[in-house]
């Protein structure tokens, strides 16, 4: 699911624009998490085709990673790039709000 680091620069050059580096924090395969991933995938395909990469982090397996991005709510989507960091929490069922959260659409 995740795109390897050394490909980032290549991709940005190919795209001629910013790469959306997204992280989805989940805790196990809960319905909320599964829904969130599916929703995210759909939104990205529709609005950011080819310009994104998604890293899914399961905190049950890597609990130490929760601190770095100050994760409290699950699921949390973090837009690591482009800066500034943005966070969208929830199952991402409201596409409009996800787009606002990712700064893809003005409020």
């Amino acid at each position, binding site marked *: 699911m995740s795109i390897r680091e050394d490909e980032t620069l290549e991709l940005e050059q190919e795209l001629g624009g910013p790469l959306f580096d997204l992280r989805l*924090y989940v*805790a196990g395969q*809960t319905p*909320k998490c599964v*829904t*969130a991933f599916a*929703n995210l995938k759909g939104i990205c395909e529709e609005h950011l085709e080819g310009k994104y990469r998604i890293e899914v982090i399961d*905190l*049950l397996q890597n*609990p*130490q990673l*929760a*601190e770095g991005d*100050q*994760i*409290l*709510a*699950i*699921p*949390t989507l973090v837009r690591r790039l482009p800066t*500034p*960091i*943005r*966070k*969208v*929490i*929830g*199952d*991402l*069922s*409201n596409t409009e*709000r*996800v787009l*606002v*959260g990712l700064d893809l659409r003005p409020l």
Partner: protein
Amino acid sequence: MSVSNSQQFTELPDGPMPKVPSGIQGLDQITDGGLPQGRATLVSGDVGCGKTVFGVQFLVHGALDYDEPGVLMTFEETPAELVQNMFALGFDLKALVDQRKLSIHYVHIDRREIEETGEYDLEGLFVRLNYAIDTIGAKRVVMDTIESIFSGFSSEAILRAELRRLFRWLKDKGVTTVITAESVAGHLSRHGLEEFLSDCVIRLDRRLSEEVSTRRVEIVKYRGSTHGANEYPFLIDHGGISILPITALGLNHDVTSERFPSGIDRMDAMLGGEGFYRGSTVLISGTAGTGKTSFVGQALEAACQRGERCLYFAFEESPEQITRNLRSIGIDLAPWREKGLLRFSAARPTLYGLEMHLAQMHKCVEEFEPTLVILDPITNFVMAGTQVQVKGMLIRLIDYLKSRKIVSLFTSLTDGGDALEQSEAGVSSLIDTWILLKFLETGGERNRALYVLKSRGMPHSNQIREYVMTDHGIRLLDVYLGPAGVLTGSARYVQEARERAEAVRYQQEIASRERELERQREAVERQIAGLRADFEAKQDEFRRFLNQEETRDEVRREDRQAMARLRHDIDEREWAGRRGSRSEGDGVR
């Protein structure tokens, strides 16, 4: 909720609720052992009440004293800030973190960064907490201030549910938790939830009264345990929070009949010969300038000379001033201060509230362990509280000191106008030994006098004694009773002079009578000598007479013999015949 309650019921152990000592001085006393083990305790309070200090102290003591590592999850201060802030209170958090006895986690919530869409939970928080607990094997958790998460998320329904789940989860985890909450307008927490989920609720409070601030702590609830029901004052200083559960003390002090000399021999004599009892409360009251502090100084010096420690709470004069002034009556406190037998604690009564004073005094006594505690004077406390409050405070102080068999020596200033028996703080009934100093105004003078108003449990003098302050301390003078009562000052001097004159006169009289007697004796002896001379003269005369007679008798006998010889020649037969009747012839002669 009903599910979790029934779970809790089945999980309850048979015995009494196990508790973990908090390590906060006094708290374990009022909670009857500490905080509920493996459960959550809510610490609620206003801004600046010391909630964070409470939590940190709980963790630090757990890590240091009870081998229970702790996790501090802070929502407000960053670890760097926290370490720095707590260092001022004497907690070295960094060292604990390095020793893996403490881990600090900062949870940052910024709503501006977060967009919400759809369903979520706070599993991330649980994961972090779980990870932190497992990493160092924590037994204690502090979350400061948990309600901050309410500011980060909009869905209160989710947060409430998650908070419930968190409490449940912490319980299942078996960690003893302290959760802090900001109290709002009389409510213990902003969302009215935490206090119901916690097994123990402690409220911290800071109140301003007459510009004097006092912190208090109250155990609002404690499931499955008895606890003190009052508000207890506490203070935060170096070493963190210390609570004074003073009213938890009963009236069951051990008493001792051991005595504590007052430092003035004649005063001891007035008090049954040996001075105060140990553990008794002594009040020295008097009008301004009667020398209350000097009496204190005497007791102080005597105690220090015996090697006992004395603690002096000065509320009016600075230690230097007291030292200087006492030097004028020959009491030098400086060496005792250097030797560490005497400690001063000087503060204006209005510096802080009564409770704070009490807390301060407790702390000092705990640290220094004196046998004599001096409060000089107690009068001004009225400025820091009402008379009822002052009395309440003094009761608790006296109780505390009595329980430690410490002699408490109070001075109290009485106004000239008031009855002398009235002490301003209204503490007379609390006092065991009350010495009253007053001025006697007679003959255009004011002279100092004292008497023992009361002294429980010992015979004491009923005399009013004049005393003077000399270069060598206070001296109680002899009692002189004149027609108008006790003689003092120059009246005493006159009396003394009169008595001295009387004594001289008496001595002179004795001497003169002795001389008279001697003269008489001499006269008698002279007479005796004269008579003896007469007698001897007569005796001599008599002897002479006797001699003469004997001589004459001799002569006569010789004459007769001579005559007989003559007659024998004439008629020898006739002589022989006459010899038989010679005696007859002698008797005739």
